[in-house]
């Protein structure tokens, strides 16, 4: 019996140790926890995937597809299938949600104007902002075999969707390597595959948008493959003359979104959709969230300044709020 216990202790517990990696990719801290399958090969492939997509999507790299499109505005540019696919998906999201206008691919010039992504973000003057807003309009973008961006349009910026898109792709890569249980964290975007090997759902904390980095607003128990994407004004901001300016810019006004929400989280099997909607709904505010709680292929959770949480019905059984947070009773 004693020998049996020792063997059980040695094998039952230590055998299940997952393969873990940590990297800095897409301007974000990235961790992978892979429990089964060809874990090391899968993690290596996901690392390579994110690195490749960063090299295609980052507008801060002159050699990337987006960097080349921006540098050659006015001329058609051949791009990778991944870049064409992501741009097409974004256009499809915009066509699907015409009532949401809080996301724009052509917001890059406005972001540059504010200096987000640099060491010196600052408040531009009103005329500059108005001029940059006038250049925003994704309809000007032609997406086919080649990408064409008019010279008069704002530069492309995929920052609001690229990480979620990559996280969704990662799930496919894990499956290709026989992985059935894994978690990827890509700068706060979480991709979940399967369940924990012990049979329990993966427990994913949701950051308290008004608290410190490790403080939670609640906990998800995830039982299905999905990507969890969150947008909030707390992620990146600067202060000038005592006013805080966050990085989520409203393409309609040119200023940081005057949202009545602190954060919006979207859960979907489509990582690009999750990231897109979290941005668009954050900019749209509470009314936009309340009218988009019943998505067929996504679920929404939003937190306001009163620490009230508005969430899709399908999340009620798998989300537990922390003390101090309350779930809104009525969801239209």
């Amino acid at each position: 019996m004693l020998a049996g216990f020792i063997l059980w202790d040695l094998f039952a517990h230590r055998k299940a140790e997952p393969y873990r990696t940590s990297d800095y990719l897409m301007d974000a801290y990235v961790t992978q926890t892979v429990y089964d399958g060809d874990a090391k090969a899968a993690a290596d492939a996901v690392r390579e995937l994110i690195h490749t997509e960063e090299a295609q999507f980052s507008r801060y790299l002159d050699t990337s597809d987006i960097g080349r499109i921006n540098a050659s505005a006015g001329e058609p540019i051949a791009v990778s299938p991944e870049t064409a696919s992501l741009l097409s998906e974004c256009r499809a999201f915009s066509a699907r949600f015409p009532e949401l206008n809080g996301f724009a691919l052509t917001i890059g010039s406005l972001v540059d104007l504010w200096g987000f992504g640099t060491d010196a973000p600052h408040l531009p003057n009103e005329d500059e902002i108005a001029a940059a807003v006038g250049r925003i309009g994704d309809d000007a973008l032609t997406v086919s075999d080649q990408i064409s961006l008019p010279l008069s349009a704002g530069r492309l910026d995929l920052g609001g969707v690229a990480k979620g898109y990559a996280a969704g792709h990662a799930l496919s890569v894990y499956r290709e390597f026989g992985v059935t249980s894994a978690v990827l964290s890509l700068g706060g975007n979480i991709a979940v595959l399967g369940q924990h090997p012990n049979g329990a759902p993966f427990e994913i904390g949701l950051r308290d948008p008004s608290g410190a980095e490790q403080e939670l607003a609640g906990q998800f128990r995830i039982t299905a493959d999905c990507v969890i994407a969150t947008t909030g004004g707390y992620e990146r901001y600067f202060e000038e003359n005592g006013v805080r300016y966050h990085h989520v810019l409203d393409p309609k006004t040119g200023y940081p979104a005057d949202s009545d929400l602190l954060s919006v989280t979207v859960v979907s099997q489509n990582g690009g959709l999750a990231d897109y909607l979290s941005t668009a709904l954050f900019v749209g505010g509470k009314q936009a969230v309340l009218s988009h709680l019943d998505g067929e292929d996504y679920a929404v959770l939003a937190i306001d300044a009163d620490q009230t949480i508005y969430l899709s019905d399908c999340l009620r059984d798998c989300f537990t709020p922390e003390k101090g947070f309350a779930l809104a009773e009525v969801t239209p």
Partner: protein
Amino acid sequence: MNRPFFAKRDLFWAALVFAAVTVVFCLLTRQGGSPSVAEVRVGDRVVAELRLTEAGVFTDPALPDMVIETEKGRVRVRSSGCPDQVCVHTGWISRPGEAAVCLPNRVSVTVRAEDQDRWIAG
């Protein structure tokens, strides 16, 4: 009546005590000693988590002129371009809560126990 120095019954009790000690030992060693990691921050932003069980050096464009080294469950700022060198002089740190801080570069290296299965969205 002379009782033998070591009767069969004593053997039973000895085996029972040995088994109990072994079980307790296994449980304690399994749950204890979770590995530590060093959390590297620039300002409020975590730029890396270094596993202290892995020997290596870490450099990053976000950490100007700074080299961070890990080995045998400990970490140190091996070199830094900062003027005061306080972070370098802190030397090796290994216990959760210990930190090497570089104020001029707004960099901190903090040791914490590794949360094996903890993820935060947002």
